[in-house]
């Protein structure tokens, strides 16, 4: 992994060099010995799956987190710089534009461009407005200086944020997933602006999950995985499949993978539990067909943002279904809300535990009985004793570590919170259980427990969908994988086809025989 080759050829001094960066959080090594180099007029992609360390690296660079070790060099400053705060980063010419707009939507475009940049009490807005007009025109941003920012499209708002950064003399521009809420046309416009900046010599760090976009615009790629540097590559040197392999941490041809044993004997029980026909929802996921059989563990594989969660959310009625049908045990059903899905025997453990899963201030007991209680109805509450019995049963069954059933769930560790949500759904005895990233952000021991539980539930006849960002986990637990890319289902793998290579080829969209 020697990465020194690039600068010898160019002989150009890098704009930004991050050397041997270390950063730990309690219990996690977020960055270990990471190097990153950016040149003038370069668009450099920072790629990696969840938890790879992309955002930590950016936060270290912009002074949000102090680093534990390492050095940062910036062109024109002959000693390592210490970036203590985002303001400090600005002074060094480093600006960030985040996915969520951090400007003030209630102010005008010009006000957003200039606000907070000087301490003058009196401001000549006439002058500012005409200056703003110049900047907007120069960068080809379709907005008027006096227009209120909230009246602009998201893309234009993002461009204004970029213009602000550029006008503040930024040399390094960080774009953190700027395209995730833009449509294709808007992305094109944004790319035009990025190319314009590139020609001016700005170095751009581009964080994205979209492979297509990355290949369309970037010059170089730095791949991180699990807080470590995988490598720096020229875009043309790194085909899609290899990139996916590097992000997922698998060398091609590495077939030393233990395929799971438990599932194949379930193949004989071919009772369809749930089936979707051309199902699509307002989340943007494209129509997909899917079948889940009794006693089977299915999985949705794909990179982050590929639509894994969107599929299962459509099945559960969490997003508004716009097209298609759902059949349960052969009968067409109309699922318009999560409650209807629950009554049809579907359970759903959501991806974002904190936002969608737990109800933090409610007790463990209340969190466990909530779903079953909602199914039972408003006028038929469980007595405290009944609820306590349920809670006790599942606390011991899943080995949930909590002081008591009265403890607020938010004070539990991540893994135990996840078990509480699992308990909640197991208590409803669903025929079809969806687990969206049940193992994210929890310790290894609990991960294994959850995987074993999934296999046991399937062997008892439940149909389970198990989604995980870690491909090994899916291979270990699932007997069939639905592969997704950019909100489309692009393939289905089963039996001997379920190898990491095949998955990666399918994700990358390359014919698997090649």
């Amino acid at each position, binding site marked *: 992994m020697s990465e020194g080759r690039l600068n010898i050829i160019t002989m150009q001094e890098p704009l930004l060099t991050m050397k041997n960066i270390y950063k730990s959080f309690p219990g996690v090594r977020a960055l270990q010995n990471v190097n990153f180099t950016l040149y003038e007029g370069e668009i450099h992609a920072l790629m990696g799956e969840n938890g790879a360390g992309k955002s930590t690296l950016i936060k270290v660079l912009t002074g949000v987190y102090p680093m534990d070790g390492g050095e940062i060099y910036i062109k024109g400053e002959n000693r390592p710089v210490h970036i203590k705060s985002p303001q400090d980063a600005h002074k060094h010419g480093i600006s960030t534009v985040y996915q969520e707009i951090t400007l003030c939507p209630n102010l005008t475009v010009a006000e957003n461009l200039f606000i907070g940049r000087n301490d003058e009490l009196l401001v000549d807005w006439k002058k500012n407005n005409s200056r703003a007009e110049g900047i907007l025109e120069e960068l080809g941003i379709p907005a008027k200086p006096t227009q209120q920012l909230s009246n602009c499209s998201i893309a234009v708002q993002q461009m204004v944020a970029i213009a602000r950064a550029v006008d503040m003399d930024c040399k390094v521009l960080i774009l953190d997933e700027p395209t995730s809420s833009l449509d294709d046309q808007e992305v094109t416009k944004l790319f035009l602006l990025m190319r314009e900046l590139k020609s001016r010599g700005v170095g751009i760090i581009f964080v994205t999950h979209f492979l297509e976009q990355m290949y369309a615009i970037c010059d170089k790629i730095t791949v991180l995985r699990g807080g470590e540097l995988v490598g720096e590559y020229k875009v043309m040197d790194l085909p899609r499949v290899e990139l996916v392999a590097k992000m997922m941490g698998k060398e091609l041809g590495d077939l030393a993978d233990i395929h799971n044993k438990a599932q194949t004997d379930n193949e004989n029980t071919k009772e369809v539990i749930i089936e979707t026909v051309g199902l699509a929802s307002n989340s943007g996921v494209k129509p997909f067909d899917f079948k889940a059989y009794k006693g089977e563990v299915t999985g949705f594989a794909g990179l982050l943002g590929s639509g894994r969660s969107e599929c299962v959310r459509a099945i*559960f009625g*969490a997003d508004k279904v716009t097209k298609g049908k759902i059949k349960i045990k052969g009968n067409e059903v109309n699922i318009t*809300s*999560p*409650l209807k899905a*629950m009554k049809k025997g579907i359970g*759903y453990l*959501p991806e974002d535990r904190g*936002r*969608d*899963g*737990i*109800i*933090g*201030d*409610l007790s463990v007991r*209340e969190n466990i009985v*909530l*779903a079953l*209680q*909602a*199914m039972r*109805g*408003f*006028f038929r*509450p469980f007595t405290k004793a009944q609820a306590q019995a349920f809670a006790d049963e599942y606390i011991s069954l899943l080995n949930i570590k909590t002081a008591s059933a009265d403890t607020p769930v938010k004070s539990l560790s991540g893994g135990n919170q996840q078990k509480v949500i699992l308990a*909640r759904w197991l208590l409803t005895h669903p025929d079809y259980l969806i687990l969206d990233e049940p193992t994210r952000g929890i310790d290894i021991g609990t991960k294994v427990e959850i995987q074993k539980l999934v296999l046991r539930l399937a062997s008892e006849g439940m149909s389970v969908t198990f989604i995980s960002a870690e491909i090994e986990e899916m291979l270990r637990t699932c007997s069939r994988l639905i592969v997704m890319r950019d909100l489309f289902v692009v393939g289905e793998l089963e039996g001997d086809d379920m190898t990491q290579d095949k998955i990666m080829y399918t994700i990358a969209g390359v014919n698997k025989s090649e």
Partner: protein
Amino acid sequence: MTKNNIKPSTQRGVSVFKTISKHRLFIPIAFLMFLLLLNIFIKPGFLRISLGRDSSGNPVLIGNLVNILNNATELVILAIGMTLVTASSKGQDISVGSTIAIVGGVIMRVLCGNETQPTELKAPIILAFLLGCLAGMVCGAFNGILVAKFKIQPMVATLILFTAGRSIGSMAMGGLKPKAVSSFGYYGNFIPGFPIPTPILITILVVAITYIALKKTNLGLYTRAVGINDRSSRLNGLNPAKIKFMAYVIMGFCVGIAGFVQSSRVQTVNPYTIVPGIEMDVILAVALGGNSLGGGTVNMAGSIIGAYTLQTLTSMLTTLNVNTNAVPVFKAVIIILLVAIQTPAVKNFFSNKAKVSKIISNQGKESA
């Protein structure tokens, strides 16, 4: 070590006190007790209750406590509704005072028709009561739709009726200021021959219904869940919009009852001056009861105690002959104190102090 063995009873006493002081009702009850003691101190005969006779010679209970229980009725009933509104929608309904004017207006119109001083009631009182409650619930539904469906901040949404309510109440009475016959006054005063003020009985009834509702339905669990995290509540099969809407309709029903009691007290309604500023007292009662105004808690008993605490405070200031115009200032000062004591910053300060003094006293024991 030996010293510990000598005094096990005090040790137990300390731990019992600790458990009590951690109870969620401890602070609300402690406030109320403190105010009552203060009252006894100021006016030694404070707790005396005697049987007197009213102007028409009927037996009635007289005493400060009776007055407090009687006068707190509207506050208690409104605090119940406000607790649910606050818990589920993370905001408050500031239109309750104005809505009482609407309810009062409707009731007076139903009872008096188009006359200012009718000699008899134009409609049965029960009908007036039901229509009054209906008016309250319609107003609640209006607020509820704005909050639950259109996702307008509760304070902004209810600002509409807060502003317009009193005028609507006046319009409901056709611009007149009618006075109903005195038999309508039974509900805000006494039923002849029965010495306990009727509002106290109504309060007991409403509190009892609330208790049963919280016990026999999922009202508490659902409102809390929605107030804490409405996204995940939805994914657990709850309908956050419906639950918030329901809370506002219940609030409206409470306003209906409170408006009925209030109109009955003097058998007439001045929509522009009826229950001035009560919305803030109600919100305070909820806060004093240990409920988070940011939603997610249903400490119903706390809110009710909070309402009585406020009424005790008002009555105390009256006893002290504080100028009516100055009452709000005194109220404000005391409320700031009460609320400040409950903030984490102050709590931590005192618990640290306690630890330090404990250490000091322990050291004292050892050296002794």
